C-alpha cells in the first residue's frame, strides 16, 4: 500500500510494503544505522518530542478517521509552527491519501502523514556540496541572535572533519565583541581568523578571500552582522558585501564568482516570520541554503514545512545542541521520523 516508504526510509528492501504500524520502516532504518547515527536521531527526537508524543497519543488512540481527528491534527501541526498554509496543504494531501488508499483506521494516518510531510520536505534535503573551486566561499547571513557565529564555529569543525582546510572571516564589525567571539571559535578549532579592528565588513571578507587564495585554503566561512529585514540600509549593506566578495574572486571559466554558497541562519524558535526572513534575504542575496539552529529546545522547527511550501530553499544543516559536533546535515527522513515519533520507544 505504501510504496512511497521504500524510497524515503532506506535499507528496507525486504520489508513488505504493507507493513503495519508497529513494523514502521523508519524503525528499521534506525535499527540498521550505526550507534552514532542512532544517538543523533535520538537527540533530534528528544528536541521534537513534544510534537511526537502528541501525535503518538492521537494515533494510538485508535478509532475512526473523522473531522475531529483532522482538527486535532491541524492543532498539532499549527503548534509546531507549520503555519496555516502548509497545514492546510498537508491536511488536504492527507485527505487525498485517505481517499485513495481507503484508509479507515486512525492508526494508518500516521504513515500517510509521514508520507505527506516527507514529500514536502524531501526536496529540501540537499546537502552542501563543496565544489572544486579554491577557495569555496560560504557567506552566512541572518537576523540578530539566530546563531550565525556559533554556526560558523560548528561548521568549521564539520568541514575540518571532512578534510578541508578552513579560514574564518570576521565580517560582523557591528556588534560588540562579535570579532572576539569568532576568534575564540577559531582558537578552539585551530583555524585562522581574518579580522580587523572596526572597519568595513566587505573589506574584511575581501581580505579573507585573498588570504585564502594565497594560502591555498579550501573553504572560507564569512560571518556577517545580524540584521532585521526591515532595515533597508543594512539589507543594502549586505548586498554590497556580496558584490565585493564577487570582486575578490570573479567568475572564471572553471568556477562561478564567489560567494559559492549563501547560507541563511534561522532560529527554530522563530514563528511565521521565518518565511519573511527567507523571502527578504533571498531577494537581497540569492540564498542557496538554510541552517536551522536551536532545535534542541522545545521548539519544533515545523516552520521548515512552511518554508518548503511557500519558498523552498535547501536546508543544509540543522543544529541540535551546544556541542561543537551538534551541527549536522539535514535529512528529511530523520526529521519526519523525529517529528512524528515514528521510532517508537
Amino acid at each position, binding site marked *: 500500500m505504501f510504496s512511497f516508504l521504500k524510497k524515503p526510509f532506506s535499507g528496507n528492501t525486504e520489508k513488505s510494503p504493507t507493513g503495519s504500524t508497529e513494523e514502521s520502516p523508519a524503525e528499521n532504518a534506525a535499527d540498521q544505522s550505526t550507534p552514532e547515527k542512532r544517538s543523533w536521531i535520538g537527540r533530534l527526537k528528544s528536541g521534537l518530542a513534544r510534537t511526537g508524543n502528541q501525535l503518538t497519543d492521537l494515533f494510538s488512540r485508535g478509532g475512526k478517521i473523522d473531522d475531529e481527528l483532522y482538527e486535532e491534527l491541524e492543532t498539532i501541526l499549527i503548534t509546531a509552527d507549520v503555519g496555516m498554509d502548509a497545514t492546510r496543504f498537508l491536511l488536504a494531501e492527507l485527505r487525498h491519501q485517505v481517499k485513495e488508499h481507503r484508509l479507515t483506521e486512525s492508526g494508518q494516518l500516521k504513515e500517510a502523514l509521514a508520507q505527506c510531510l516527507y514529500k514536502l520536505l524531501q526536496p529540501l534535503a540537499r546537502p552542501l556540496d563543496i565544489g572544486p573551486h579554491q577557495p569555496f566561499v560560504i557567506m552566512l547571513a541572518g537576523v*540578530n*541572535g539566530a546563531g550565525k557565529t556559533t554556526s560558523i564555529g560548528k561548521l568549521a569543525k564539520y568541514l575540518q572533519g571532512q578534510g578541508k582546510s578552513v579560514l574564518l572571516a570576521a565580517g560582523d564589525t*557591528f556588534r560588540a565583541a*562579535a570579532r572576539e567571539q569568532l576568534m575564540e571559535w577559531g582558537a578552539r578549532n585551530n583555524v585562522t581568523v581574518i579580522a580587523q579592528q572596526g572597519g568595513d565588513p566587505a573589506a574584511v571578507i575581501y581580505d579573507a578571500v585573498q588570504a585564502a587564495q594565497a594560502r591555498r585554503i579550501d573553504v572560507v566561512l564569512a560571518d556577517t552582522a545580524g540584521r*532585521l529585514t526591515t532595515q533597508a540600509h543594512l539589507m543594502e549593506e549586505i548586498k554590497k558585501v556580496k558584490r565585493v566578495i564577487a570582486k575578490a574572486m570573479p567568475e572564471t571559466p572553471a568556477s562561478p564568482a564567489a560567494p559559492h554558497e549563501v547560507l541563511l541562519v534561522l532560529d527554530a*524558535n522563530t514563528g511565521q516570520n521565518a518565511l519573511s526572513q527567507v523571502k527578504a534575504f533571498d531577494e537581497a542575496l540569492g540564498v542557496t541554503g538554510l541552517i536551522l539552529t536551536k532545535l534542541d*529546545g522545545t521548539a519544533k522547527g515545523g516552520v521548515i514545512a512552511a518554508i518548503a511550501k511557500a519558498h523552498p530553499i535547501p536546508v543544509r544543516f540543522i543544529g541540535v545542541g551546544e556541542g561543537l559536533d551538534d551541527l549536522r546535515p539535514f535529512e528529511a527522513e530523520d526529521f519526519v521520523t523525529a517529528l512524528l515519533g515514528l521510532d517508537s520507544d
Partner: protein
Amino acid sequence: MLDNLTQRLSGVIKNLRGQARLTESNIQDALREVRMALLEADVALPVVKEFTAQVKQAALGQEVIGNLNPGQALIGVVHRELTKLMGEANAAINLATVPPAVILMAGLQGAGKTTTSGKLAKLLREQQKKKVLLVSCDVYRPAAIEQLRTLAQQLEIDFFASDISQKPVDIALAAHDYARRHYHDVLIVDTAGRLAVDEAMMAEIKQLHAALKPIETLFVVDAMTGQDAVNTAKAFGDALPLTGVILTKLDGDARGGAALSVRHITGKPIKFVGVSEKMTGLEAFHPERMASRVLGMGDVLSLIEEAHREVDMAEAEKLAKKVKKGEGFDLNDFKMQIVQMRKMGGVSALMDKLPAQLSQAAAGSKVDDKSINRIEGIINSMTPQERAKPEVIKASRKRRIAAGAGVQVMHVNQLLNQFEQTQKMMKMFSKGGMAKMMRGMKGMLPGMGR
C-alpha cells in the same frame, strides 16, 4: 504577505450588512478569521482558543452603533480585548529597595539579553539618573563577557569584570558586594542564554536568583518567537519568580504574537520593548499599539515616532524656515526630502505602517521606491547650479541629464513639472493658503510612473 484582519473580516461580514446586533450565528465565520489571523501572527494556539472565547463572550449582544458595520464593531471588540489581555497600561520598572536594586536578565540563547542589558543601563541612567553597574555571568558563550564590557565602555557605564574560570554565582555575589561598596543604585546581571529543558542550566539560574534576591527578574524574549513561546515562558515562569518581560527585536516585521502568549502564560507585564539596534532603542511598552500591530491595523503612532527619530530635525527646520520666508524651494531641498524618506525605509516601508484603506489609496498613486530612485538619479546627474536654479535647464542640458541618469528626456521633463508644482505649492504655503495647498497637492502625487 499577511492579509490584515480588517480586510479578511470585510469579506466574511459583507452579508451581515444591516444587522443590528452581533449574534452567535453571524460572528461564527468572523471568529474563525480572527483565530486564523492570530495564529498567523504567531500567537500560541492555547492562547488563541481562550482569547476567541473571550471575544465571543464580549461581542455577543453588542449593538452595532452608528455607521459602523458589524465587521468594524467586531474588530473594535477584538482590539479592546487584545489590549486588555496585554495589560492596560505600561508597567514601570521597580527599583524601590535597599540599593543596589538587582535586575536579573533571563532568556533563551539569542533573545538579546546582553544588548538589552546595555540598553536598560543607559535608560536607567538617563531617565532615572541612576548609577548603574553591569555584570555578565555568561561564562559559556565565547566572548559574551567581552561583549558586555565593550557595550559598557561605549555607554560609559561601570562594568564589573568577570572571568570564564569563575562560577556564575560567585561572579554575581562579588559584583553585588562591589556595587554596595561603591554606592551603585542598580546592578544589572546578564546571564547566559539557556534552554528551558536544560535542567542543569535552569538550576544554575535558580541558584543565581536565590543568591541575589533581585527586585526585578526580567524574561527577555524575541518578538519573532513562534508557537513555542508558551512552553518557554511557562518553563521560565515556573523556575523563576519573574516580575516582567522585555520583548526584543520589535523593529522587525514580525507581528509579535509572542507578546500575547508570554503575557498570557506568565501573567507578568511587558515592561520594555527593543525597537532598534541603537543603544537608545529600548522603550516603554504600549499595549494598545501592540494590539494594533498584532491585528495588522497599521501603526501610525510608531510611524510618527520613527519620523521623529530618523528625520534630521535641523534639516527639516531649515527647510521650514526657507519655505516660510518664501525663499526658493530648489531641487536640493527636493532631494533632501527623498533622502529622509529613504531613511525611514522607503515608500514601501511607510505604506506597511499605514492602515489598510490608506495604504491601498496610496498604492493607487503609483509612487513606489523605483520611481523615487529614478528621481534621485536624475537630480544627482545635475550640476549644483542646475539644482539651485532649475529654470536654466533647457533642451541640451536635459539631454545630458537624461544620459547621465540613464533615463529618457521625457522623465526629466516629468520631474521638472512635478518639481514646479511642488514649488508652487510651497509658495502658496508661505502665503498661508492652506486650502489652496490641499488643492494643489492633488496634482503632485502621481509620481514619475508611466
